[in-house]
């Protein structure tokens, strides 16, 4: 059956490693190809989706701790950039500060909540995210419910934003790969499989989850910041919305949770669908996500990637027959 598995020859391995790089190069050429501002915008938003998706997966996929409240980091990052830029700081500095702030917030949130298991943790994260949203809606210093506008006195150059988004997504994927292939990632996997057994083996689940949470939060915070600069106007009901937390959870699941490229695929699919669907068939998009989710959970928990693997196996079997 699987006797037809090809030994990964040197050339094959080089090709496989080269593919992501090739993809990166192709994407980097897009602005020069002048395919239209909307196309660029959709790709940009997709990069942000991929970043957040990959980030979430570090905690939710690798460590198996599903948080339903990642919008809180996204929103904090967005507001950091908004307030920071309005105070005169450069955008890239604010992204860095956003990441740090989000990581600190994740410590505050994680310290008490990681003691909880199962749905209690998920619910707690929702509670935290919503509480922050309500507080931000009332906080006059950041504009309250009216939101915060970033006034940039430099002309808008879409390519700048595009490359920032691409870089962010690439960095996120690299971090994901580093985590996955490291000792830290091994510990996370152990915790995911069986937390008690891992703890017995000498892995401190609490500390590891906190660390994973911080990494994920930092990336998500930076993503929020990049978004804020692009849209130039944010409000609590937008960036802290429950829908945003939901989207961040949805993407890795659709693509294939607990893998490196699954969240990337999920982010890509989500970014494109979201844009096209909301423009053309807005009345169906909830139904689409709902059905997609149901089908994935029922039939292919590995998401799109799992589906691809299954198809590949089927194709191989068909060829061998």
């Amino acid at each position, binding site marked *: 059956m699987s006797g037809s598995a090809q030994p*990964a020859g040197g050339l094959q391995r080089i090709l*496989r490693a080269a*593919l*992501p790089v*090739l*993809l990166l190069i*192709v994407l980097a050429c897009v602005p020069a190809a002048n*395919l*239209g*501002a*909307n*196309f660029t*915008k*959709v*790709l940009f*938003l997709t990069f942000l989706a991929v970043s957040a998706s990959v980030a979430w997966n570090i905690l939710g996929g690798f460590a198996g701790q599903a948080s339903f409240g990642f919008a809180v980091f996204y929103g904090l990052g967005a507001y950091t950039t908004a307030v920071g830029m309005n105070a005169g700081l450069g955008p890239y500095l604010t992204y860095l500060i956003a990441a740090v702030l989000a990581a600190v917030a994740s410590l505050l949130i994680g310290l008490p909540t990681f003691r909880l298991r199962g749905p209690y943790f998920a619910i707690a994260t929702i509670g935290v995210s919503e509480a922050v949203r*309500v507080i931000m*809606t*009332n906080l006059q210093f950041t504009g*309250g*419910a*009216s*939101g915060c*506008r970033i*006034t940039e006195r430099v002309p*808008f150059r879409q390519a700048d934003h595009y490359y920032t988004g691409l870089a962010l997504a690439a960095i996120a994927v690299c971090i994901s790969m580093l985590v996955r292939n490291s000792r830290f990632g091994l510990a996370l996997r152990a915790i995911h499989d069986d937390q008690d057994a891992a703890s017995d083996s000498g892995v401190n689940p609490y500390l590891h989850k906190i660390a994973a949470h911080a990494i994920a939060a930092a990336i998500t915070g930076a993503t929020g910041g990049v978004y804020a600069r692009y*849209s*130039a*106007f944010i*409000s609590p*009901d*937008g960036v802290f919305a429950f829908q945003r937390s939901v989207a961040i959870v949805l993407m890795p699941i659709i693509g*294939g949770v607990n*893998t*490196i*490229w*699954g969240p*990337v*695929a999920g982010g*890509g*699919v989500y970014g*494109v669908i979201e*844009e*096209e669907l*909301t*423009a053309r068939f*807005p*009345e169906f998009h909830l139904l689409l996500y709902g059905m997609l989710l149901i089908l994935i959970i029922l039939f292919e928990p*590995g998401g799109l*990637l*799992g589906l*691809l*693997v299954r198809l*590949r196996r089927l194709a191989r079997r068909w060829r061998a027959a």
Partner: protein
Amino acid sequence: MISLLSSSPRALLVAVIAASPLLWPLPAKAQSDIPVGVIMPITGREARPGQYQREGIELAIKQINDGGGIFVKSLNKKLPIREVFYDDGSDQARSASLAERAMSSDNVVAVIGGYSTVLGEAESVMADRYQTPWITPGSAASSIFSKGYQYTFGTLSSVENLGYTTGQFLGWLVDQGKLKKGLKIALAVENTDHGVDYVNGIQKWIGEHAGYFTIVLNEKFELGGTDFSGLLQKIKTAHADIFLSDAHLQDYVTMQRQYLQAGMYHQMISYGARGPEADARKALGPGIDYIFAGIWWSKDLGYAQVKKFNTDYTAAYNRPPDSWYAATAYDAMRTLAQSIEKAGSLKKDTIRDQLRSGELRGSLLPGQTLKFGKTGQVANAFVIVQNKPDGKIDIVFPSDAATGPAIAPKPQN
């Protein structure tokens, strides 16, 4: 697991290539029409007013196209308007994204959109970024227009004026002897720029006219809530004489319903720019009698063009225009069309210049002229309407536009 990792990049590439035709921009074609972007919520929280505004715009487009379209001097022919419509689902991020899409890949000459402050704020960012004129018939918060942007326009007067006019109206009632002097007002407004502007307007009037009213409660509530019992309890314990709120349609209906269920009473009640909506009447029946509202337009204004608009609208949609929504949108489209014609070309800068300097005579708005001010916002006057029993609505202020007497104080239940 390893196979997953190695197969995925390839799969990813395939997926990206497969998906790209969806995003491929269409090839350019010869100019055969004038594309105008229209972005309104027709689903979600703001669906009802969004629908009405869409109807107003589309009625104007139809009437213009029935006449052959707009004459564009640079092309020496009349071109019809093509509406590029997007539903933003009352979602602010989507609203901005769709505005961007319309202005960039759809290449519209202008966008009319942005019902409600937050949606308007989000969309307005795109106007200057893509240097496309953007007219909002549904956002009135001055913060949108105070940032020094060049391409934003609005056919609604600022909400601060609304608050001020409300103060004027109440003061006039005192002068008429219908209300006593020194009454207490409880304010509960939506937690947005709209609410803040409203309170500012009222406070400005009260400040200028000492002794008329005092504000005993000034609270903000979150939009889209379902349970206002806490807030209403607070209002109850403030023991005020007049209750003024500023809310969106959905919150107005919910709050008024719970107000009635709590058995409350005030001499005058208003929900800002909401009051006469048919949906409220349907939901609450006689429960909205004697509520007054300060609105940007009423179908009972005595102008000939208003009567014609009412007839055309009713013929097209089988119901009369509801409150003010459709009219400001209708005129937004009309003034845009006039500016395009005056511009003589489809260049967005020139159209913007014409919007800036021109004025629409025979406008539906109070005063019959629509002219954008320096900030891009109009400054037409408001009318105060009051709900009367059996579904009637009267304009009660200013007196020269009034169609019926103002009933104050409200009769006890």
